[in-house]
């Protein structure tokens, strides 16, 4: 039994190191292509874009979201903004009705049907060649749209462009931990962009060619992760998805652990189930790095982190077991466990060195991601919040997502 667990452990370790090295090599190959443009960008033409803002009980943030869209550095008559109230029960209706006076804003009210139904209503009503969504808890940087549109102008094969998502005004420790997670995400998503293997086109401000939906159909419920499913569908049809790392979108993040847990559970559950739904693409050459790297990597990460968590729980359990023994044998006289430091007792198993390699590469991704996100202090200590918070809690949502997936899939296995 222990030897099987050991083999699994070393296979997972190997794969985890592989993934991090793969990202790093991708970085070395493409590092010169990562630029952050400072000056104004001029496009040859400014195509019209429809931006849908689906709202469900967003009375507090939606006005700010709409204002950020109105402030976009892009010809006003080329931006159509649809505010779609998906059956809110708060004051969202009145808040967004005030925007009807703007000529380029249309307001729709519908019965609650979920985010994907609001997006599909927007798709139905839109008449432009480009289509995007902005979640009502996010705000765009004024240069974001023009920077994104430059990618479409550069390559007519590009079908969607995802932005760089940054945490808006992190206050709580949980939010600061997420800031680091998003910073790291900016780095990894850019790398996936280079690999042509992006698997999420985030709800905050990914812009699509409308052709995507004309060809492939509207949004689906997709386990409440419609922005992931559409990316999978595009990858399955070899539609190119780019990442525009200097188009910044600021998003509000869950301020408590509980809310974060719920959000991440939905994401991971969505990842597992969309991957299962699209399992036919796995390891098929024609789907490229998406099939050979992104999806397997996601699965490996979930299992590695869960396994490592199990190992840590076992060790902590063992530690307490030993303490109980100690208490039973000699009471609370723990004098013999004096801390006499002796380098002899430092763990020098090969696994420890590999863990150091993985951490160094992850740290590099975080710091470079912070640079890309133009954070003020690249070497901020707030980076450290990420490790305990995500290290302890991420395995819980991973395991719960795996558990929920098994439960929900059970009937179909019979």
């Amino acid at each position, binding site marked *: 039994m222990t030897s099987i667990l050991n083999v699994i452990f070393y296979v997972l370790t190997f794969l985890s190191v592989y993934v991090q090295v793969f990202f790093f*090599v991708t970085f070395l190959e493409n590092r010169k292509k990562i630029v952050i443009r400072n000056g104004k960008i001029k496009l040859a033409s400014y195509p019209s874009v429809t931006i849908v803002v689906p709202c469900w009980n967003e009375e507090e943030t939606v006005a700010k979201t709409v204002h950020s869209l109105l402030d976009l550095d892009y010809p006003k008559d080329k931006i159509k903004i649809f505010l779609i109230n998906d059956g809110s029960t708060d004051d969202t209706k009145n808040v967004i009705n005030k925007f009807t006076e703007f000529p380029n804003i249309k307001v729709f009210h519908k019965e609650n049907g979920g985010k994907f139904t609001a997006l599909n209503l927007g798709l139905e009503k839109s008449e432009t060649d480009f289509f995007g969504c902005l979640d009502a808890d996010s705000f765009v940087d004024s240069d974001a749209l023009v920077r994104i549109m430059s990618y479409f102008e550069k390559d007519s094969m590009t079908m969607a462009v995802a932005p760089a998502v940054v945490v808006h005004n992190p206050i709580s420790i949980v939010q600061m931990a997420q800031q680091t997670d998003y910073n790291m995400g900016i780095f990894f998503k850019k790398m996936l962009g280079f690999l042509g293997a992006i698997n999420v086109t985030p709800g905050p401000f990914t812009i699509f060619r409308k052709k995507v939906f004309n060809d492939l159909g509207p949004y689906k419920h997709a386990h409440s992760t419609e922005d992931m499913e559409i990316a999978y569908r595009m990858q399955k049809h070899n539609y*190119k998805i780019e990442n525009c790392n200097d188009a910044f979108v600021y998003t509000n993040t869950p301020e408590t652990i509980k809310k974060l847990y719920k959000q991440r559970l939905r994401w991971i559950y969505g990842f597992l189930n969309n991957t299962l739904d699209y399992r036919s693409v796995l390891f098929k050459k024609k789907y490229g790095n998406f099939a050979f790297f992104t999806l397997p990597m996601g699965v490996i990460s979930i299992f590695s982190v869960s396994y490592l968590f199990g190992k840590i729980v076992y060790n902590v359990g063992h530690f307490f077991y030993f303490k109980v023994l100690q208490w039973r*044998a000699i009471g609370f006289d723990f004098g013999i466990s004096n801390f006499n430091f002796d380098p*002899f007792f430092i763990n*020098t198993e090969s696994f420890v*060195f590999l863990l150091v390699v993985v951490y160094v590469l992850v740290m590099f991704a975080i710091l470079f991601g912070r640079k890309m996100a133009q954070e003020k202090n690249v070497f901020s200590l707030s980076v450290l919040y990420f490790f305990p918070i995500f290290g302890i809690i991420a395995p819980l949502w991973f395991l719960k997502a795996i558990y929920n997936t098994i439960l929900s899939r059970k009937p179909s296995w019979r």
Partner: protein
Amino acid sequence: MSSNNIDWKKYLIVFLITTGLFFTAIYLSNYFGGKKINQLKTIQDQIAIDILSSETQFSLLSELSCKNISDSVFSKELAELGSKLEWSQENLGATEEVSYLKKYYSLLQIKDYLLAKKISARCGTKSAFILYFYTTAANCTLCEEESLVLSTLRAKYPELRVYSFDYSTDLSAVTSMLQIYKIKDTALPALVIDDSVFSGFQTLENLEAYIKGIFKLQEVKPSTNTNTKSL
């Protein structure tokens, strides 16, 4: 639509790099593991020399008073070596080298014990030592507890010497010890104090009271003051 070419060469290169890192990690692990084994060997050699020197000193000074020898004879590193060996067995894996070192360690303990016995016979003093038999082969929770009890006592009474023997050690000298005291693996942990055998777990209180009685030990530090280092 878009070209989704896979760069197989890159997959291979990353594989080679990862494999390289793996082997480097294994190499480093072996390197440091080897260093630790060497450190153990050095300590053992030191102990061997100490014991030999004590034996020689004992023979040379046989006419002299017992006072001259009693303090310096015993090798101080024996306990340290024991804990390092135990750790190595758990963390470096029960390699051939570790089990070889463990045998050597058992032998050194027996020699140390015999020397102590000789001295006490000659000088008519009672040396405070306990023979402790345990096992690592079976899951022996009581052995772990007994080890903790003995470590506590040793910290309290530096004169007390504990010789611990793994029942599963494949060494004729250890087997002889087991036969002499009629130790069975079903009755572990077992202690031998002043030629009496105690089978099963002995509590700290009982053991302390017993050894205090027969050895007249001096407590070096109050048990409440646990933070002071005894080096």
